[in-house]
């Protein structure tokens, strides 16, 4: 099996594992997410532990990998390149937060839940894809940095 094929299998397996992790963590239940965000209501702190556990697993791997020259199956690491804390970063995060708070869905759980095929989640995911395309159109019309670069920025 070539490295290229193995890379695709790793991507497939990671996506599957990621989705199962979201489900076990309860993050595909938007009510649970909204209750995490509702600090002054019936607060459910579960999401904080989901992030904590994910970071505790990921951070040591990152520390060991950043000293390596290359990942196991590819020629280089695609590290995020942008360092600027700018209006785009903060305004984007504000808009995302409002959408997240309105629905209880962020991109990952939305996509996983879309397999259920019910109207609420399909409307959400369809609109999310439209929103992404709209942002691409806006940046392209302005002749700003190619959206290709921004794709690699943080993830």
């Amino acid at each position, binding site marked *: 099996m070539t490295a290229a094929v*193995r890379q695709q299998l*790793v991507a*497939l397996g*990671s*996506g599957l*594992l*990621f*989705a199962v*992790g*979201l489900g076990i*963590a*309860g993050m*595909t*239940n938007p*009510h649970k997410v909204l209750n995490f*965000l*509702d600090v002054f209501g019936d607060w459910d702190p*579960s*999401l904080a532990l*989901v992030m*904590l*556990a*994910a970071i505790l697993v*990921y951070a040591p*791997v990152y520390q060991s990998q950043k000293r390596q020259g290359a*990942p196991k199956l590819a020629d280089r690491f695609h590290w*995020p390149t942008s360092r600027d804390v700018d209006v785009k970063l903060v*305004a*984007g*995060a*504000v*808009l*995302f*937060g409002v*959408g*997240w*708070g309105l*629905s209880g*869905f962020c*991109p990952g759980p*939305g*996509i*996983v839940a879309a*397999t*259920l095929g019910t*109207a*609420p989640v399909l409307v*959400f*995911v369809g*609109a*999310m*894809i439209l*929103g992404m395309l*709209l*942002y*691409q159109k806006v940046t392209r019309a302005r002749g700003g940095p190619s959206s290709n670069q*921004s*794709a690699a920025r*943080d*993830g």
Partner: protein
Amino acid sequence: MVTEFTPLAALIGGALIGLASALMLAFNGRIAGISGIVGGLLQRSDDRTWRGMFLIGMLLGGVVLQALVPGMMLGAATSSLPLLAVAGLLVGFGTRMGGGCTSGHGVCGISRLSTRSLIATATFMVSAGLTVWILRHVVGGLS
């Protein structure tokens, strides 16, 4: 709808999310940010294959979850369809503008102690929290 605090499930699920992201980094050298992966699929680029494979993996994961745990509130409705459409637009536009979401900034970025990701995560947490506070405690329309 009240949900219980589920610390063990949260820790196990979170660890799996961290593991999945770590595999993408160690083997493929990629950041497992969902908005970035999907956004990259929507434009012309030479690396759409792995993005597509990751997405297919996620959808397979959704099918597996439904088979294993039927009543898990996958994709439950939280508000009206028009409001969900507005929410989706904001999440799609905002995550691309801000360069990441809960996974790319919240997990991978914070693990790298990236200033951008720390600021983005703090910002979307506060803005999401304020949105829920307004909806539930000021307007009171959502329960």
